């Protein structure tokens, strides 16, 4: 069973589709330096519909970019590929990395999340199918 990322409620970001804190960026660089996978072009941020609150983020090594995926260039040579299915719920999200004696993990400050379960790993979002709700514009 794969480990999913913890989601926290937060304020929307007006600038970027997806942003990262310095500690998250530092950790991603460490991961990319340690990578053992050939043809790795970045980290893929995906979403899966499971968990007790509906959705969970996933993080994997990406070897290809699909047609409708969005690439966020976090730094030179550091690419975060956002899966097309995850785009709507990722908009405005900030990715952070926290270190504690008990655990070290990525967390996501997601303005679209309306509810999370107790451990924060599973979340639900607004229903974007409501006609009068305006979608955020891409940069």
């Amino acid at each position, binding site marked *: 069973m794969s480990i999913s990322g913890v989601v926290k409620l937060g304020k929307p970001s007006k600038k970027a589709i997806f942003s990262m804190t310095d500690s998250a960026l530092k950790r991603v660089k460490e991961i990319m330096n340690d990578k053992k996978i050939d043809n790795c072009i970045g980290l893929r941020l995906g979403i899966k519909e499971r968990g*007790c609150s509906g959705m969970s983020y996933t993080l994997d090594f990406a070897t290809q970019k699909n047609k409708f995926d969005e690439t966020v260039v976090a730094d030179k040579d550091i690419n975060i590929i956002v899966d097309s299915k995850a785009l709507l719920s990722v908009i405005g999200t900030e990715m952070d990395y926290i270190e504690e004696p008990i*655990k070290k993990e990525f967390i996501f400050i997601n303005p679209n999340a309306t509810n999370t379960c107790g451990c924060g790993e599973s979340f639900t979002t607004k229903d974007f199918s409501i006609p009068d709700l305006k979608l955020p514009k891409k940069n």
Partner: protein
Amino acid sequence: ITPIINNNNHNNNNINTPIKNIQSFNFKFFTTTTTSNPIHQQTTTTTTTTPSTEQQQLSKEAEEINENITKYNITLTDSCVKELNSVQKKSDSTDIFLRVMVDMGGCSGYQYIIKVENKLQDDDVLFIRNGAKVIIDKISLEMMEGSIIDYETALMRSSFVVASNPNTIKSCGCKISFELKK
């Protein structure tokens, strides 16, 4: 009596001096009766079991666990021990314990609470393996006997987890919340 006489005759035939002959006979007779060895000339020596002792010491050094590990069948994995000793080195405190306890709550009814402490409570049961110390209170231990405590490493998160607990039915994705068997 007859065998003694026969031996005496035999010795007389071989050795000239009667006095020495008698003494030699007595000595041999004494040796025979005490060792119960039918062959007089052959002697056997026993060697100590040094290799097994050394092996025993080696295995003892390789795996140092306290009695509670076997008593309650709690497993601390290699990565758990390694990470816990790493946390110990980074800490200012002289003693670091990983507290694992069971609490009500979570999406499946019960949940684990895992944290680092430096004090031992009265009702805690201490588990030690190769310097790594884990404490579980007695009430939680009733629901955790036979569990495996691990340190999981993955892209998204690295953390201490209760990797498996035979007393539970299922757990949520992050293995924090679980449901008990009845």
